[in-house]
């Protein structure tokens, strides 16, 4: 839509002006990682939008770990989330496909999606685990945001992506960005893309990953790659596009009551039926299934690849499994240690 420039101190004024009408969440740096926290008017000091995706995916805001679905809960809060990266917008798009774009709409998700505005960012400091670019996803968004930020030396470029985004900045009468700042943005974007590609040179992730994945579904290396998985469910919990949940019935005498709680396909009970029979009794099968869901099944279900290359499942794995090495092992037909040694954060 349109691109504006805003100086650093006016940007802080802008986001603080939203606090009176909205719960505003922004990333703060904690132990060299970014975490969303509620913005308080007197606390913008360590605020760090414009570096990289925060630890939490957007899923945490729209599809919480556990919530009541019967009877429906009231969703009143109006929120603005600042600092989501493109990988997270793509993850949120998968959630939209699941929860509101099909025949059946999830009641709570639909309300939250309407009441929440998203101010995304261009990544300027991709992490060593980031691999969006190898899956054809850019470290900057082209859609799915209300506003998008690019961090420059003295301020931010703000691009509007929706009518709601336009409304959020209209009081501030911002100046349109100059051509030179827009080319500066191009340069930053290209740099980030190049950094991500460089980080991932050693891995073999083909552009036609879905097709190759399908062909190599029964590759013998699937027997090896999962071996340090402790089936904790970290990767599914932290994934921006993992949506699986179970329903718990907590009905009382006076009416039905149900809760929806995240589940993980790595857990042995996930698909096990009452008879004790499971379609995937082995952890090797469950591990492969998680990746098949991302690279194959979601593509068939939603016409979108289910993995956004955010690297959270790598960073969060206590078994230190680097998914990129897993894919390389299968695709290159090479038995290898799929663990990483250490990770570099900000």
């Amino acid at each position, binding site marked *: 839509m349109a691109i504006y420039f805003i100086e650093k101190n006016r940007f802080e004024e802008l986001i603080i002006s939203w606090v009176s009408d909205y719960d505003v969440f922004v990333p703060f740096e904690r132990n060299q990682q970014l975490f969303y926290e509620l913005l308080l008017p007197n606390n913008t000091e360590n605020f760090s939008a414009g570096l990289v995706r925060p630890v939490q995916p957007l899923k945490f805001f729209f599809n919480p770990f556990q919530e009541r*679905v019967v009877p429906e809960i009231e969703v009143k809060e109006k929120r603005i989330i600042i600092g989501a990266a493109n990988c997270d917008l793509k993850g949120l798009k998968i959630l939209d496909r699941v929860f509101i774009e099909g025949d059946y709409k999830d009641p709570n998700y639909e309300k939250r999606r309407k009441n929440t505005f998203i101010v995304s960012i261009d990544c300027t400091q991709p992490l060593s685990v980031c691999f969006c670019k190898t899956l054809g996803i850019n470290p900057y968004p082209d859609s799915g945001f209300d506003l998008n930020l690019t961090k420059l030396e003295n301020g931010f470029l703000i691009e509007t992506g929706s009518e709601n985004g336009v409304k959020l900045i209209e009081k501030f009468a911002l100046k349109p960005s100059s051509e030179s700042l827009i080319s500066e943005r191009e340069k930053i974007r290209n740099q980030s893309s190049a950094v991500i590609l460089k980080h991932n040179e050693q891995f073999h992730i083909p552009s036609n990953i879905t097709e190759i994945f399908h062909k190599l579904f029964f590759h013998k290396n699937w027997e090896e790659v999962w071996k340090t998985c402790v089936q904790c469910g970290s990767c599914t919990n932290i994934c921006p596009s993992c949506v699986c949940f179970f329903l718990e*019935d907590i009905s009382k005498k006076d009416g039905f009551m149900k809760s929806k709680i995240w589940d993980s396909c790595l857990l042995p009970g996930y698909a096990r039926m009452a008879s004790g029979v499971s379609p995937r009794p082995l952890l090797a099968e469950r591990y492969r299934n998680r990746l098949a869901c991302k690279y194959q099944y979601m593509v068939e*279900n939603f016409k979108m690849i289910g993995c956004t290359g955010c690297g959270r499942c790598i960073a969060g794995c206590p078994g230190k499994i680097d998914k990129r090495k897993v894919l390389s092992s299968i695709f290159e037909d090479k038995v290898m240690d799929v663990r990483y040694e250490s990770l570099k954060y900000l």
Partner: protein
Amino acid sequence: MNHSNIYEPLKCIVDNVIEESPTIRTVVLIPEKNFVFRAGQFISVTVPGIGEAPFTPSSSPAVTDKLEVTVMKVGRVTNAIHNLKKGDIVGIRGPYGKPYPLEKFAGKEVLLVGGGVGLAPIRSLFYALIDTAEQYKKIVFCCGAKTPADYIYKNEVLGCWHDYCSKLPLSFRITVDKKDENWKFNEGLVTKTLENLDIDISNSVAVVCGPPVMMKFVTLKLLDIGYKDSDIYLSMERKMYCGVGHCRHCLIGPYFVCKDGPVFTYDLIKNEPGVWA
């Protein structure tokens, strides 16, 4: 379903609980509002405070003010269903999934193969077929159970349904794995009833429902005697929660049992991992 909340069940009163076999009971439910479904679709039954599980109604889809589900006792929820008494309250959600495509069966010879508690959806289908019997050239009903005591719907399958045979192009092939002294039908696995079928296989569809191992061997037998994989209709079973394609528990490869199934033709799923689990 008129509810705006997809997870809100429709209240039902338990009208009767019928003991079918030592491990299987049929629960007759009276829904708060008339409940419309088609044979092969499933519902999710909530036992308040215990949990929810998917079942295909076993009663005639022509009846909308009563509903029957036939349940084998295997786990927590099914155990609670077995303990229901007349007057108890349960909830149902649905109907979900794709029904048996009766319109595709028109003009064909329909082979029904049911085993054990798998007769439940076949019973519902049977009533739907009988109601539109003039559309099908022939109906052959093969069914099996472990022992005579394990047969469900004894009065119908072993009794009154046979009365239709004089009026309709309908025949039964009934077997048990192991007979007793009073058994007047066949002995042997249900696959044995598929030998020397008096059916024009090139103009036939086969509908199979039963335990996974039975479905597997019946499917292999059907392929063996000349059925095309696209003419074999299987009622698949998976762990389910939402019923609407959100929670992803029921996937067979990329296919949702809740949304794309539960009735699948074999050609669609035959190459997916863990089909017969």
